[in-house]
């Protein structure tokens, strides 16, 4: 598992490099049936955005084509709440244990889990690189109402941790 706090900045503001390394167990490369990159604690209180995921391409940024050759593995999109429209504290997510008789549903802005299926991209990496998977690059793109306002952002991608889950 890679915590967001462990990640380093990429070439451009907003791009993140994750210290995630993976090699398939010897002789079991072909048994890889599915691989998921799972992001936990993803915030969605602000504007909408997309995060593009690249494997073994530490130079990836918003100009990198979303192609297998560039290590593109997939993306996830956050449909944002656009900031707070209530009074002070309206969008604060309660912390700590809930009262025993509090049966209200979770706060609508409770962070979510996002999954990117990266099976094909990981298979390619394992087939091509003797060192296996050495880096994961995350490229967050703001998806504003106006296309002219869309682009690389360093303020929207907020999450707790990322992990790779493989299945045989």
């Amino acid at each position, binding site marked *: 598992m890679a915590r967001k706090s462990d990640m380093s900045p990429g070439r451009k503001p907003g791009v993140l490099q994750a210290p995630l390394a993976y090699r398939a167990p010897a002789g079991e490369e072909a048994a890889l049936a599915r691989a998921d990159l799972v992001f936990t604690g993803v915030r969605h209180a602000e504007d909408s955005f997309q995060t593009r995921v690249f494997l073994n391409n530490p130079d990836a940024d918003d100009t990198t084509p979303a192609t297998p050759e560039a290590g593109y593995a997939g*993306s996830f999109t956050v449909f944002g*709440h656009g900031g707070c429209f209530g009074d002070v504290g309206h969008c604060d997510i309660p912390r700590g244990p809930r009262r025993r008789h509090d049966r209200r549903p*979770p706060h609508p802005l409770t962070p*979510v889990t996002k999954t990117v299926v990266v099976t094909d991209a990981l298979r390619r990496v394992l087939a091509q690189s003797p060192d296996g998977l050495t880096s994961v690059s995350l490229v967050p793109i703001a998806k*504003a109402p106006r296309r002219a306002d869309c682009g690389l952002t360093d303020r929207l991608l907020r999450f707790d941790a990322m992990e790779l889950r493989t299945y045989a």
Partner: protein
Amino acid sequence: MDEELYMRRAVRLMSEQELAQLRRAFAEVMALNDDRGYQFFAALHGLPPPFYCEHGNPLFLPWHRAYLYMLEQALQDRVPGVTVPWWDWSSPGSRGEGIPAAYAQPEVDGAPNPLFAADVGLPPDMIALVRSRLPGAISDDDPPRTVRDPDPPGDLPDAAAVQALLEAPTFEDFSLRMEDVHNFLHVWVGGSMAQVPTAAFDPIFWAHHAMVDRIWYLWQMRHPGQTPSAQLMGQVLAPFQMTVADTLNINDLGYDYALQVVA
């Protein structure tokens, strides 16, 4: 056949007569300013608070199925038999033209097309907040109108992406993956659709969600034993008087999906 079972149709395959009925139903619901009207339904999803919509959890699909059902009932109160069509954004046609023509024409026969845009009837202070915080989400008109700024049609998900969704083995897995594609479509349309607070004011919201609902229906047919968890089944989908279990059979809700219906 159940005579009270209505068919939702692919918008690109609807006849001129069917589209005229749909426009009439939307126009009449938009003219109502009470809890039978378009503004009432649009506001349930976003502004003004509270936002009742469910995202990022397993209630996403059931809640939006109930939501569409409620609007469809309101449309049928005005024009019997009319249904919310689905926008198959994965079809080759959509990936060529983008927004379907029925929703892209500002006027039809010299009259405003209610499927093209809608008023965003919010209090003045909230309109000011939307304009400052989400520039481009609503028009500069008074009252503001919904707007769009779509990405290139070729960026839309293709049929293979839908097929991949249908292979998800469990409801929870399908829901997670379906919601992400759904999110992508919202930001692809741009404008009002790109952000939760204003999305449901755009008339194309309903056609997009009918497509999401249809894919869920197709997934249900492929995975008949896979249902939401028992814990989820009894959960009420506020503010609707429906539970998750109430949403699982679309025929119980009075509709089905047909590519075309020929009498």
